[in-house]
């Protein structure tokens, strides 16, 4: 019969019992203070090593990180710039759409006329003349003499046409004369431009009572423009001694400096009375 209690077996048995005992003690929490006591220096050492490593790593690794960050920064900046340009393009489209919606609204509110919407693509080269160029021409049904308006009021009339473009003489041009009617005073007069783009009122009867702010509409006389289109408001009136008529300055309703889109009235045939003028 073999002897089970050999010194070797006893040693293994004791070892197993010690291990199981330590495990039982550890699981039951009796060894926690002892672990804490023994682990805390290790943790401190680990922390110290880790901090030094990180410092070391930062010292040598940061330039690479900076370069990467710079690249990322450049990419992001580029992306931001692209997005900003997209925003600007969208805003421009929105502004254009708003203008077209307003023009469309004007056309719906004034159904007696037929309109062709056009974009302003240029201004006259000579500073003495007030003309603009639009992107619609005879191919779009535009003819010489047609009146041009915006949603606000009168702009001018077509002065020259080619197939895909037309030139408009603004009411601010020195050569432009518009027969008008003062709405409240119910008298007629003429609105004419100047080389500086200012608009003046003339030929108003001397006895007419004209208030500041009086609304000026086209009268339709002369056959150049249809009646009742808003032209502007009276800014001031002057009466000279021995003058036959009153004169005044006019604030046009249309801001000609920011004119970007217009409506051409295509169903109005202007009458050319030039041969009748002596």
């Amino acid at each position, binding site marked *: 019969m073999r002897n089970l209690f050999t010194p070797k077996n006893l040693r293994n048995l004791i070892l197993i019992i010690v291990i199981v005992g330590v495990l039982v003690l550890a699981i039951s929490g009796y060894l926690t203070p002892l672990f804490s006591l023994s682990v805390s220096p290790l943790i401190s050492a680990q922390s110290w090593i880790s901090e030094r490593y990180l410092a070391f790593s930062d010292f040598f690794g940061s330039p690479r990180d900076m370069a990467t960050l710079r690249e990322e920064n450049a990419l992001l900046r580029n992306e931001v710039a692209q997005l900003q340009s997209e925003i600007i393009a969208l805003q421009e489209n929105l502004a254009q759409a708003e203008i077209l919606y307003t023009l469309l609204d004007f056309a719906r509110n004034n159904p007696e006329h037929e309109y062709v919407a056009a974009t302003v*693509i*240029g*201004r*006259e*080269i*000579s*500073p*003495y*003349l007030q*003309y603009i*160029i639009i992107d619609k021409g005879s191919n779009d049904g535009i003819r010489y003499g047609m009146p041009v308006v915006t949603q606000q009021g009168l702009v001018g009339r077509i*002065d*020259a046409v080619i197939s895909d473009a037309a*030139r408009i*003489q603004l009411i601010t041009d*020195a*050569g432009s004369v518009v027969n008008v009617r003062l709405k409240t005073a119910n008298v007629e007069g003429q609105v*004419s431009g*100047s*080389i*500086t*783009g200012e608009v003046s009122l003339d030929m108003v009867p001397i006895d007419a009572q004209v208030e500041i702010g009086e609304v000026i509409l086209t009268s339709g006389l002369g056959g150049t423009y249809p009646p009742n289109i808003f032209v502007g408001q009276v800014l001031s009136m002057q009466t000279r001694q021995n003058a036959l008529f009153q004169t005044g300055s006019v604030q046009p309703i249309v801001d000609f*400096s920011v004119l970007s889109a217009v409506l051409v009235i295509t169903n109005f045939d202007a009458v050319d009375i030039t041969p009748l003028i002596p």
Partner: protein
Amino acid sequence: MLIYLAYGMSFVLAMMLQYGVFSRWMILSGSPDLVLLLVIALCLHQKNRRFWILVLIMGGVVGLVSAMPYFVPMIVYMAVYLASLSLKQRLWQTPLLGMFLLTFGATILANLLSIAVLFVQRIPFVFSEALVNVLLPAVFLNMFLAIPVHAIVRELNVWLYPQGAQV
């Protein structure tokens, strides 16, 4: 041929810029005339004897597009060409001075011709108003733009005449 093509393209570009952009740049009521400046710079830099034909065509094109009578830009541009011939002989070492002199003279000539046309057409205007509000600001703006236009045309000429770009 390449020279005429380059000059023609720069003229078209100048016209588009003038009608689209520079006509809106205003001091009081005066605006710069980029096309006139380009014609002046080209006249000062050109070496071709038949360049006057191109100048005449440029004047005709501007006259057709503009509401001014067609002969006004033609007269002004031809006067610029003739003056440039004389100036190039006298001021060949200082082309920028020639550019300034021609810009000043041509702007005044163009404005006075425009005023004369308005007068003939019986369009009412006040001469002093035209002088102060249009002519003087136009002269100032043209003089201001004369330097960059001259520089651009000079570079164009260096590209077109690689060996003879001393002008």
